[in-house]
């Protein structure tokens, strides 16, 4: 089936991109009160979430190729067009970005207490930019959205961050910007080779390109995306960025922004430079394994709760890249499900850290402990997401990781065994953390009267929890959407 057959007259994707800005920005700019600003952002994100869910529901999992395609000329002189569409690789990222939006607004309402107008404006712009990354089919447009997502996040850390925010911001910006510049070079090189910016058309055109060019393009793309994921050893910006970012910023960063890197691997690296990927597969798999085990080991001994969650992200994203680079359909399905799952669980964990930070003003594990009797609801909720993160079956983390493991064993038994070690370590750092933070006796008497999670906090957690349970119990609802795309990527008919 070719593009266009499933295209609908209704421009769902354009609406999802621009309607939130139209709805949200004027309200945010003009509103007089904090509440009105937040409501404007909430309305914008709800619009986006609704369209994202609608698109997911109406997505035809039997059709191959892109759906909901919209194409229009933009800068014809340069061959740049406004082209949008989704397929199995992007549909769940669209869903994730949409669903996360209102929940992050909720978290921001609870945790941002200065310059709210600017923060919510940045958040709404960021939401559009991230969604744009996942739905564009034109390379220049993609690059625009990619950069557009970088700036609000840069501001969020730099303006609303904690003590060392400037260091973290500069590191984050330089690191990811270096990747972006390399990516732009690769995009231009592809354009010179294939004569097009059309993402849909490029893979076929690149098939005839010389291997040397493929290698250069691969190197540039790889660095850009590996930094974003982040893969070992390009990950050190992440813990700093997370620790300094405000809670809502961490949630977006871990939830969606990291997925842009993995998405880049799936959308560009695999189909456009297949030969170069083949050549380096061993290294790519090794780096993924290193991220899984090394990230988990470092997480084990972090004294700062947020750093622990950040390093656990490195480990869990290692499963994503492992699934992508072991290149079986099952592994890639697992990678995408893991992207969705991590995109919900890690924001929940960062939010859980934020809830305590708002009350106790500390993130140090040693300063906490014995919260359970004082905050029973919070303890239960945190426990739930802790278990989801360590891959408990019937919750979402298990599905992605197990499918990735199936793919990894199909690739090489030793690789599978090493990756599976990460699952033991995940249980170790999570349970040990939970034991020291939530269980046990109260160590810090100033926390004796700490209030339990309030209704809005519970509602935010619940929104995240729904997906965790749904993916865990009925994974086929989501996995079936991926089949035609991942089968193609895995080279199966």
């Amino acid at each position, binding site marked *: 089936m070719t593009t266009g057959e499933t295209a609908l007259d209704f421009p769902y994707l354009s609406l999802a991109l621009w309607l939130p800005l139209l709805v949200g920005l004027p309200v945010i700019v003009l509103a007089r009160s904090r509440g009105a600003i937040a409501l404007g952002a909430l309305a914008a994100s709800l619009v986006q979430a609704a369209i994202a869910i609608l698109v997911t529901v109406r997505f035809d999992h039997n059709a191959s190729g892109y759906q909901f395609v919209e194409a229009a000329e933009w800068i014809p002189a340069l061959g740049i067009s406004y082209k949008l569409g989704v397929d199995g690789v992007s549909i769940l990222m669209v869903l994730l970005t949409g669903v996360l939006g209102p929940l992050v607004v909720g978290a921001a309402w609870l945790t941002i207490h200065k310059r709210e107008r600017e923060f919510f404006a940045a958040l709404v712009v960021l939401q559009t930019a991230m969604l744009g990354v996942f739905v564009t089919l034109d390379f220049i447009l993609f690059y625009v959205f990619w950069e557009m997502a970088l700036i609000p996040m840069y501001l969020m850390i730099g303006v609303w961050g904690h003590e060392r925010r400037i260091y973290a911001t500069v*590191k984050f910006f*330089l*690191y990811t910007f270096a990747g972006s510049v390399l990516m732009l*070079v690769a995009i*231009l*090189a592809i354009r*010179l080779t294939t004569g097009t910016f059309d993402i849909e058309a490029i893979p076929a055109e690149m098939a005839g390109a010389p291997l*040397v*060019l493929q290698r*250069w*393009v691969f190197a540039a793309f790889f660095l850009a995306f590996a930094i974003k994921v982040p893969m*070992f*050893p390009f990950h050190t*910006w992440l813990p700093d960025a997370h620790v300094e970012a405000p809670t809502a910023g961490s949630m977006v960063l871990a939830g969606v922004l990291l997925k842009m890197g993995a998405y880049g691997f799936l959308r560009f690296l695999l189909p456009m430079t297949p030969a170069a990927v083949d050549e380096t597969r061993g290294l790519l798999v090794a780096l993924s394994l290193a991220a899984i085990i*090394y990230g988990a*080991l*470092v997480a*084990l*001994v972090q004294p700062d709760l947020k750093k622990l969650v950040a390093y656990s992200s490195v480990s869990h994203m290692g499963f994503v890249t492992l699934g992508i680079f072991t290149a*079986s*359909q*099952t592994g890639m*399905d*697992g990678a995408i499900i893991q992207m969705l799952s991590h995109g919900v669980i890690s924001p929940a964990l960062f939010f859980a850290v934020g809830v305590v930070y708002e009350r106790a003003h500390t993130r140090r594990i040693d300063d906490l402990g*014995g919260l*359970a*009797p004082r905050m029973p609801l919070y303890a239960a909720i945190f426990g739930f997401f802790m*278990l989801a993160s360590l891959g*408990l*079956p*019937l919750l979402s983390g*298990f*599905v992605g990781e197990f*499918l990735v*493991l*199936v793919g990894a*064993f*199909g690739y090489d*038994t030793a690789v*599978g065994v090493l990756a*599976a*070690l990460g*699952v*033991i*370590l995940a*249980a*170790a750092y999570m*349970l040990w953390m939970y*034991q020291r933070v939530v*269980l*046990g*006796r109260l160590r810090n008497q100033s926390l004796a009267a700490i209030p339990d999670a309030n209704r809005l906090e519970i509602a935010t957690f619940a929104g995240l929890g729904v997906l965790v349970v749904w993916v865990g119990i*009925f*994974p*086929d609802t989501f*996995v*079936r959407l991926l*089949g035609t795309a*991942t089968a193609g990527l895995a080279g*199966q008919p």
Partner: protein
Amino acid sequence: MLNAPWIIPLLPLAAFAVNGLFGRRNPRWTGWVSTAAVVGSFAATVALWIASAGADQDESLLYRWVASGGFTIDIAFLTDALTIVMLLVVTGVSALVSLYAVGYMDHDANKPRFFTWIPLFVFSMIMLVISDNLLQLFVFWEMVGLCSYLLIGYWYDRDSANAAATKAFLVNRIGDFGFAIGIILAFLEFGTLRYREIFAGLGSADAGMVTAIACLLFVGAMGKSAQFPLHVWLPDAMEGPTPVSALIHAATMVTAGVYLVVRMNPLYTQAPEALLLVAAVGAFTAVLAATIALVQTDIKRVLAYSTVSQLGLMFLAAGAGAYTVAIFHLATHAFFKALLFLGSGSVIHALNDEQDMRRMGGLRRKLPVTYATFILGGLALAAVFPLAGFWSKDEVLAHVFLKAAADPGGALTADHGAGVFWLFYATGLTVSVLTAFYTFRMIVKTFHGAPRDAALHEHAHESPWVMTVPLIVLAAGAALSGAVLGIPPEHGVIHGYLEHAAGVLHLEGAGAAPTLILAVVSTVAALTGLLLALGAYGRGLPIPQRARALAPGAETLFRQKWYLDHLGDGFMVALTKAAAMLSWGFDAGVVDGIVNGVGKLSRFAGGQAGRIQTGQAQNYALLMVVGLVLTVGGLVLFR
């Protein structure tokens, strides 16, 4: 409708939801909600059992869990004889323990939490044994592990309980690491994870791979069923409330490993080396745990090590190819060990949570019902004729003997390692002596002699009916279940029934006379241990002193649990932490050091190149364009 299997897991699931959502508002009712649901489950199981009489098996699909590139998993029910036996044990014991817990947990402020996790456990355990494929089994295998974790750590203000809970989860994760690898390799070898399809594919499977899969699945069983060296979590798990110890850590969850091996028996039969491993680990664990049980002073820890030991015997039976016998012993053990744990709970309840036997003594007059039932449970555990444990354990030993004695070249020794089964038989007899000894040491120290703590003794009282009724029912089971299920030996109800189960092998006995002699031998072994214990602790004969003189150092070894906890908690944990600290140092020093170094270097270079910085935007733009052109040009030239 009556034989619809879905109602069996549905009832406890509903109880979980009701107690989880509304329990905090109506704490008093939570225990009854849980009990009613589990009793309903038991009734539905009985109905299913009756309705399915004569039917070979029944499968029903619930829904497709996942389908991804050939990896297709359904959530489905398989109800054959083996499942139904397991369901009867699970729901039956669960119903009694839930009822008992209504009394035991009566004064606990957080009991809604307790009665939320209990039905969740029962649901998960049902889903585990009713599964028709390995992945669904694994999913609920981990879920029962979760319930175990939550209930061991039920009193979460106790550091020891939290540590025990984390330890249990982590040790099980190590087992599940092997289990998961086994499952994935099975999928890659057979292209399916459904039992029936795996068995059908055995004929054309690679022998080495089958052995590897069988061994890896057994690693999972070693974790869940607390076999050496993964047994270390179970004694610590006694930190949980006693009904939990009885239900999860004695009668049901810990037997899941035995169930797994028996369920997969066609696979194991094809993998004699794996079977040998199962038997060897079982035999060693049985004697290891029995020796540690000899020197415990905490009543629950005696029972915990006893459970580890008895599970070892079940694996020994399975390893000898006597799968039916393993399940037979699993069933009788569920009765008498649940009884003993609940009895110990009744004692602990009466003594204000005192578990140390050194502060007990003379309780038989204060707790007559508990005492009488405990004696029956103890006799059953010691395998004294004609109680339940006698019939099943005698068969375990008989089959190990038969396996050892089988003629070379005969049907039994087509596989390997028959010779070593003599050693296993001797081990089994030793375990019989030790079992009877530690059991009656415990009984005498708890119920006989003079009270060692007058104040505690003074306030001791018999438990309420909700606790004694389950004791009496279980005592009946402990006394009679062996005879009802297992007479005549080899051809009892359970043997005939399980022959319906998929491929369960039935080892032909060696005739009545040798069987009788073997029964006499094992009875003598049990009575020896029993009399030695009565002599040592009842009459004050210097038997322990003699033993100490005979084997100096042995007591220390047993008290130190053969130093195995040091190996795990100490060495392994320290090693992992060292690796973690090293990684963290590497990350901060080297990986991030390089990043920051590059940053500093470029700042330095930037300073040198500062002359280019004119502050004019068009100059920067020009530089960027030049750079881009050079790079792209280079790319194009090098193509």
